[in-house]
């Protein structure tokens, strides 16, 4: 009940005209960015982060959060209409969405995607409302050794879950930690890897790095790529009345949405999993559980609903560890974390008690923002169809301009532009040779906190490492980390032996 009281208190903040305006702006930007293939929520948030410099923390996070979940709505558009997912979580949406378009029912697919996104997102926000504080209460029991263990678990899970090769994921993670060590060392006050550059004494800034790795590298990749064929969209007019699905189809979608909403949120909470994995898992789960499971992939609204409900739920779920423990579960959440730090907030268990207005204002705004996103997505269908047709040769130079100004704006220094360019080249080669970039980003964000907590762990224990095997929570977390690293190898070997037999 206390959570409801706090939620209503938060509504007072969320419904302030300026915050509603920010939620609408964020929602529109998120949907636009999500609809355009190649630009995801991560880049969208990173490029728009400088706009929040003049805002208060609550309005700023409301806008960025709206971009994040608005992106999940937008990603479905190009997946359904062109078979090209705007963002990776929409990959599974294309499996049924595009065949529905081929059957002459693109409106029905978009309507289902929007409604499923809304209900999935609402389930996710509802769970976040209750779980956020519970997770923060657990977090309050965490000392420095537990924090180190939970962050090591986050880093290992993301490097093992993303990409095809865990080894490459680990290399990317280590690279992220190395980059984070540039600057003054907080424990001894000595400069590390600054190469005599005064600007680097404060370390590499996250925003220019993200803009480079995810934005500039994308421009490089798009440069020689063939333009997306949008000819099939020419002359296509979508009207809302053609989009409504039948009562029978709506009834069939409801259980899938409910299942995907709950499972998607839980997957979103787990570090490293995020919206893409949740969409994949929920699609497979619903394919097995649904009465029409065999028809999944042939173009049924239920398939679209399963994937879209889960990715929106996961986006909401990702806020629970971010706010309660200060652990981002995905690249976009890492940018949001850097935003929180930039506005002078310290994410972690104390945030819910010390910055209650901020937390509940954000959670309440997500309810409001979700409704607004649904309205925008429904009303913007005709415009978005046109937007998807904008060629990358027009978008690329504009993104380059944004990359330069956005990187500079992070701290008004030219060094940021060098970092952005270097990040772009690193990101390009990492993508080309299948090194996942998200683990690098997460390691970059988390390693200063790991180092600080590791330092404290030894300090409080007189230089002994026994804290790591005498505290139950730490032991459990470290054992889970080891299991996560060892299990895939064992499964691989067992499968290999079975094949031989």
């Amino acid at each position, binding site marked *: 009940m206390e959570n409801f009281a706090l939620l209503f208190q938060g509504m007072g903040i969320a419904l302030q005209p300026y915050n509603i305006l920010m939620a609408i702006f964020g929602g529109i930007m998120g949907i636009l960015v999500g609809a355009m293939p190649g630009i995801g929520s991560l880049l969208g948030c990173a490029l728009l982060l400088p706009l929040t*410099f003049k805002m208060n923390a609550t309005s700023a996070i409301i806008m960025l959060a709206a971009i994040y979940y608005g992106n999940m709505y937008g990603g479905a558009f190009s997946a359904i209409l062109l078979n090209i997912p705007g963002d990776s979580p929409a990959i599974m949406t294309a499996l049924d969405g595009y065949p529905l378009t081929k059957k002459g029912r693109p409106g029905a697919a978009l309507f289902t995607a929007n409604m499923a996104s809304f209900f999935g997102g609402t389930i996710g926000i509802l769970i976040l409302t209750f779980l956020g504080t519970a997770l923060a209460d657990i977090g309050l029991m965490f000392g420095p050794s537990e924090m180190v263990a939970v962050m090591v678990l986050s880093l290992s899970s993301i490097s093992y879950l993303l990409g095809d090769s865990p080894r490459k994921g680990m290399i990317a993670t280590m690279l992220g930690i190395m980059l984070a060590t540039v600057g003054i060392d907080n424990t001894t006050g000595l400069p590390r890897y600054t190469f005599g550059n005064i600007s680097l004494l404060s370390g590499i800034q996250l925003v220019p790095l993200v803009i480079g790795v995810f934005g500039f590298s994308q421009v490089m990749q798009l440069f020689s790529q063939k333009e997306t064929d949008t000819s099939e969209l020419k002359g296509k007019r979508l009207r809302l009345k053609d989009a409504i699905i039948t009562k029978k189809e709506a009834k069939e979608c409801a259980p899938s949405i409910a299942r995907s909403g709950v499972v998607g949120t839980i997957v979103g909470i787990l570090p490293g999993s995020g919206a893409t994995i949740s969409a994949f898992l929920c699609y497979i789960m619903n394919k097995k559980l649904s009465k029409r499971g065999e028809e999944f992939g042939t173009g049924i609204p239920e398939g679209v609903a399963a994937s879209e409900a889960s990715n929106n739920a996961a986006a909401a779920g990702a806020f629970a560890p971010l706010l309660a423990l200060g652990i981002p579960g995905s690249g976009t959440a890492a940018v949001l974390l850097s935003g929180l730090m930039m506005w002078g907030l310290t994410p972690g268990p104390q945030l819910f008690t010390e910055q209650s207005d901020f937390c509940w204002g954000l959670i309440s705004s997500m309810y409001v923002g979700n409704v607004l996103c649904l309205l925008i997505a429904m009303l913007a269908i005709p415009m978005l169809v046109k937007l998807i047709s904008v060629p990358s040769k027009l978008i690329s130079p504009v993104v380059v301009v944004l990359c330069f100004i956005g990187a*500079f704006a992070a701290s008004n220094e030219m060094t940021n532009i060098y970092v952005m360019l270097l990040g772009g080249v690193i990101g390009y080669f990492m993508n080309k040779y299948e090194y996942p970039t998200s683990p690098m980003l997460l390691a970059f964000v988390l390693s200063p906190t790991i180092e600080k907590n590791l330092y404290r762990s030894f300090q409080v224990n007189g230089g002994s490492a026994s804290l790591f095997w005498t505290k139950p929570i730490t032991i459990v977390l470290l054992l889970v980390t080891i299991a996560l690293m060892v299990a895939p190898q064992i499964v691989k070997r067992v499968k290999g032996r079975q094949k031989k037999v």
Partner: protein
Amino acid sequence: MVLIVNLVLLGVGLYWCITAVTTMPLWQGISLAGGLLPAVASGVMVLLLIFELLDILKKNKINKEYFVNSFKEVNWQDMIPVAVGLGILVGIKLIGMLLTLTLMLFCWLKFLSGYSVKKSAVVTICVMLFLYGVFKLWLKLPLPQGLLGLI
């Protein structure tokens, strides 16, 4: 090319590790010091990269032809944005950020994307006016003015 990328990463890892071990304290009093984390991270990365390199060496025959093919594998057209980026850096030093980006946007649209002068100019003016309004007028960002700022 993957071999070269891994070798570059190995070089960076080794530099990081050697610098940490030789110039930074790893342990001070009863707790870790600044050199420990970079030493461990880069050490693990070097180890993993050695395994990665061994895999590549197992799968490929490394000779002159391999390196020639590696360079052919890269689409050097993709590097044009980097070249443009370096040009922008020089431009910023000379004529400032806003003017450089305006020129770059127009030239890219006209010459690289192949739009007409009119369309390129309209897009450039719209985008740059919007950015000027947001970053210069609203956020009051002190955008670099280059040598022009001295006049």
